[in-house]
């Protein structure tokens, strides 16, 4: 392989490794958002539900948390070019 070909292959491997690391990071961050939203608003719903004696607020809080997380993930990562902008 020529020197130029070797450089091109090395550059392609670097890009591949970078996108793999980025994908892993974003994938697990998105997963963490989903879990965090569910726990945070589930807990808030549970607390309010205990005070007002409406136990249904706990599952409603969890669902609201998932909805908030989903919306935020779409806002943060879902738009075209957002991955490059939010590249960690």
């Amino acid at each position: 392989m020529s020197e130029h070909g070797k450089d091109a292959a090395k550059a392609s491997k670097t890009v591949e490794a970078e996108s793999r690391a980025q994908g892993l990071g974003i994938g697990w961050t998105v997963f963490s958002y989903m879990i965090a939203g569910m726990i945070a608003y589930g807990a808030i719903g549970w607390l309010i539900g205990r005070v007002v004696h409406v136990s249904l607020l706990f599952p409603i809080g969890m669902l609201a948390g998932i909805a908030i997380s989903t919306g935020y993930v779409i806002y943060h990562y879902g738009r075209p070019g957002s991955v490059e902008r939010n590249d960690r």
Partner: protein
Amino acid sequence: MIGSVRAVAAVPLAETSGGCHLGNGCGFPAPGLQNFDFKPIFTVGSFDFTKPEFIAILCALGVIAFFGIAFRKPKRIPGVMQSLGEMAILQVRDQILRPSLGRRGDAYLPFLVSLFFYIFVCNLMELIPFFQFPSMSRIGFVWPLVFMVYFLYLYLGFKTQGGWGYFKNMIPSGVPWPILIILVPVEVLRFFVVQPFTLGVRLFANMFAGHLLLTIFMLATWYLMTWSYALLFSAGSALMVLFVFLLELLVDLLQAFIFTTLTATYIASSLDPAGH
């Protein structure tokens, strides 16, 4: 209760199944939590030294010895051990560190190399005869690694961005304040609790499930080994042992890779607030 579990544990496979075969009248000795609990090798006061601890220490010594021998007398034209050591370090640098941190992250190379190889060797121990147990399938061995990573990226974040700046950068900019109030609990919980939790639980759960799968098929092979049609199923189970063995080889490497890559990503997010 713990005593009775311990009494069952840490005995060879054939004894765990109690010489139990299909048709003997005894049921299948299903593996469970008892396979992760061991009789102490020795006891000092209330401290029990068990097989997983022995394996964890052995792995640490193995990794130290390997790199110690490889780079004891580094030469311009490297020998076999030095070449292997260099290849190992360069793989971690080019596949894990540089893609996340770039050249500025080279200072963290020793930490990431140690982390990767320690986890990898600990995981590999589930496939090596006599040891046959991955220390990381006991969550107590995972948390110290997670806490090391957690406190490192918190420290780096506070150091490079300052206390207030670190919290401020955690929250996305350009978002209207009513939405910010909604987002703050999610973001704080994700960053301080869920992120380190998933980092640890993923490694633990994969090793736990892998060890359990291997044990199930090993025991089933033994249990079904009778002079009857069950011998066919025993052969099938033995094939599954081979398949799971190869799968676990991949999982061992992959879990070490994911843990170290995410560590590099978290360090990068602490050093570079622009990512938030």
